[in-house]
């Protein structure tokens, strides 16, 4: 037994290697949101679509919904877009925040790609997005009926993320009211 203490540093080295190996598999761009369980920061954005009301932080109150941050210049958003259209068809309320984008470009994007949004606001300066802690697009917030952020998805919403994570959370929120 006493002889085996000789092996302690090797065992420790093994632990360190294991920790590093696990760390390699993690995506460092996925940061936890500081807004979880907190109310949405206040914003009041002009419309993306002409003749539209735009998007206010208080707009979503009343029922759980998604707040999707997108931009016409964002490639991953185009990957995500069919899924958003699918969700709209299922009746999921989605608001869009067009981040660091020209309103005309954002509007054209919705014409070209289809429009999954209930409300859509243009955040040309990116300030509303920065208040939300947005580091890139797309990002999607699950907002409850009281206007509090409950979950954040970084990157495109895939059918797996929707079915496995967001839908169950949203169903739970609907029941809780």
């Amino acid at each position, binding site marked *: 037994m006493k002889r085996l203490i000789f092996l302690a540093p090797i065992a420790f080295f093994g632990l360190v290697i294991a920790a590093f190996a696990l760390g390699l598999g993690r995506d460092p761009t996925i940061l936890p949101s500081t807004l979880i369980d907190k109310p949405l920061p206040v914003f009041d954005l002009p419309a993306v679509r002409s003749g539209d009301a735009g998007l206010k932080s208080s707009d979503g109150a009343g029922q759980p919904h998604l707040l999707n941050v997108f931009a016409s210049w964002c490639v991953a958003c185009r990957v995500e877009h069919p899924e958003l259209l699918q969700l709209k068809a299922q009746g999921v309320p989605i608001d869009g925040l067009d981040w660091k984008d020209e309103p005309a470009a954002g509007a054209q994007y919705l014409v070209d790609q289809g429009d999954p949004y209930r409300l859509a606001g243009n955040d040309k300066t990116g300030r509303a997005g920065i208040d939300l802690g947005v*580091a890139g697009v797309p990002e999607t917030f699950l907002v409850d009926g009281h206007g509090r952020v409950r979950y954040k998805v970084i990157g495109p919403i895939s059918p797996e993320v929707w079915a496995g994570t967001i839908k169950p959370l949203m169903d739970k929120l609907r029941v809780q009211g």
Partner: protein
Amino acid sequence: MSGAGVTRSAGFQPALSSAFGRTGQRRQRAGSPRSGVIAALALLVLAGPARAVLPGEQLADPKLEARARHIGAQLRCLVCQNQSIDDSDATLASDLRIILRERLMAGDSDRQAIDFVVRRYGHYVLLNPPFEPETLLLWLGPGLVLAAGGVWVALMARGRSGAVDAASPLTAEEREQLARRLDVESAS
């Protein structure tokens, strides 16, 4: 394709020899290309790191600008995560630099300006992480490893010295043998 490659490498050779080969023959002469190369390298050492802070972003007040630089160097860019917002060319980093300057202009302390960004992006943006429960392992980890290593060394050392202590002292016969050998060695 290969023909072009040959031509290029042939063109490359003289350039190399003019920089290093031929100058070797006249290295005593001052102002030779070689001393130019050395001077250029020396200047390279003096060069400071290039910051991405754009002229349009900078504040007129040099004191406030210096504070903004000091803070900007401590904040991680969310896009290029191993760069500070002062180092990064990402537009988000530029936005954060401008916001930071707005906060300072509005009278925020350094602490308040940093907290403004941390409230939005979390402690991850701090390149210098704070000491708190979440970061205990980070701060104390090296000390713990050092302590564990110390304990290990102590245990190993005690085991060894214990073995020496346990050895019985030399018998009279052994001592005589030892003395004889030492005598032989010192005589020769």
